[in-house]
């Protein structure tokens, strides 16, 4: 029973990691750099949720929507002000500047909301039991909403013109330009999707645990591990990778002391880069 319980917690953590990993994977595939500020976009989303839900006492749905919209706007704005200038440069320039963005975002969050730990709601919620599995209603809601967002993402990437164009640019940016695809518009949508999903992941992480200015930064390693596991640049791989990393992290507590759980994604990532750097799902030829 303990294994099943941990598996459920793994799915919960995995759904949060997956939402973050999709954005990292998309930005890597389309813009060609590892975005180190992605975790802090998550944190930003979580604190917008705190502002709307806790500080202004407005409904949860509104807080989630506001977090998604605000973070998407901030992500697009950062691209316009900063990353756009470095499009033709080497990817290392973008990577380093994203590191700077991460520090700036985190400092701004600390300046506005302070360095202390915050909670969406104080008090203790009781975990319900379903078939012997302990799970809080909030946690169930997180899993359901995460799956819903993944389904929406799938619809967007498979059935909309701009979603297909995003996959086309990730596949072959030169050919996309030769076909007349407006790559700047594709890039803008990449930040909207990546930022929006990061915000949702941040709010969910805040619901499940608590809010701290470095909450997203600490999860970034697991997010990178998930994106690499799924074959970086492949959004569906990143989702699968997120669930695998989350489940393995929780199950590892059966054999490892809990404080070692963050080591697990790192070990998976390093192992993966050595054994199969193209990711688990790189079966297709390019």
């Amino acid at each position, binding site marked *: 029973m303990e294994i099943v319980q941990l598996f459920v917690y793994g799915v919960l953590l995995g759904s949060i990691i997956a939402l973050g990993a999709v954005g990292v994977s998309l930005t890597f595939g389309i813009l060609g750099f590892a975005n180190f500020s992605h975790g802090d976009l998550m944190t930003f989303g979580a604190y917008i949720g705190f502002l709307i839900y806790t500080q202004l006492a407005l409904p949860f749905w509104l807080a989630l929507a506001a977090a998604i919209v605000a973070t998407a706007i901030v992500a697009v704005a950062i691209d316009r002000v900063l990353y756009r200038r470095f499009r033709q440069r080497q990817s290392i320039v973008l990577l380093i500047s994203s590191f700077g963005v991460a520090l700036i975002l985190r400092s701004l969050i600390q300046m506005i909301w302070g360095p202390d730990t915050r909670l969406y709601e104080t008090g203790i919620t009781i975990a319900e039991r379903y078939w012997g599995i302990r799970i809080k209603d909030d946690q169930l809601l997180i899993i359901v909403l995460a799956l819903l967002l993944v389904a929406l993402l799938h619809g967007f990437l498979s059935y909309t013109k701009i979603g297909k164009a995003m*996959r*086309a640019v990730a596949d*072959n940016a030169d*050919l996309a*330009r030769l076909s007349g695809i407006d790559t700047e518009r594709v890039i803008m949508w990449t930040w909207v999707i990546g930022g929006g999903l990061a915000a949702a992941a941040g709010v969910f992480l805040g619901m499940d645990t608590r809010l701290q200015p470095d909450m997203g930064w600490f999860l970034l390693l697991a997010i990178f591990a998930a994106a690499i596991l799924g074959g970086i640049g492949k959004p569906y791989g990143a989702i699968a990778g997120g669930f695998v990393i989350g489940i393995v992290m929780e199950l590892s507590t059966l054999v490892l002391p809990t404080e070692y759980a963050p080591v697990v994604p790192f070990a998976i990532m390093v192992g993966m880069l050595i054994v199969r750097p193209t990711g688990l799902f790189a079966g*297709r030829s390019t």
Partner: protein
Amino acid sequence: MTLLALENVCGGYGEADILHGLSMTVAPGEIVAVVGPNGAGKSTAMKAVFGLVQLRSGRIRFDDADITRLRSDQIVRLGICFVPQSDNVFPTLSVQENLEMGAFIRSDDIRPQLERVFELFPPLREKRRQSAGTLSGGQRQMVAMSRALMLEPKLMLLDEPTAGLSPKFMDQIFAIVRQINRLGVAILMVEQNAKQALAIADRGYVLAMGETRHAGTGAELLADRHVAEMFLGG
């Protein structure tokens, strides 16, 4: 009447020029083959038309408009499509999605054109849900050309469409080029297989060292003793 004209084009990718005063024309509905030894600047000439080469001097005109300084995406909108030699499909997208991406700048109903393309390439209709990366080399080339056709271009640029294909597929590709041409699309094609290319071409240019050495109808060039000795392997 000319559709495309390169006038004394000089340029390259960096320090040294590859094209040294190249001139050539394509008339509406024509097939023009560009042949010549490796390093003659054949592919560079084609990329120059599409705004992918830094031009030092010369002009490129299309439909009486100067396109010398335009970007690729602006050139596409005028009705020129380019099929690169390699990496010319979106591998993880399905065949149909590849074609839809070819029509990205169109906002009208693309289904009639999709239907025409599937009639031209029946194997693609069967495989339209399959990802393009899983297709054979010949079928990929079909996807690449169909993607370009989705815009109903006036001119299609083909960069070595038969490179790396088996002789059986080569004949098939040349047959397809003629079929596309019969739809009224002018073709400017760079080819290694000079004999076959000149055989289906209305006119041809033999390039060497970044300039035109010989020009004439396909039949004239095939019959020319100098051309045969220099470039067609006797």
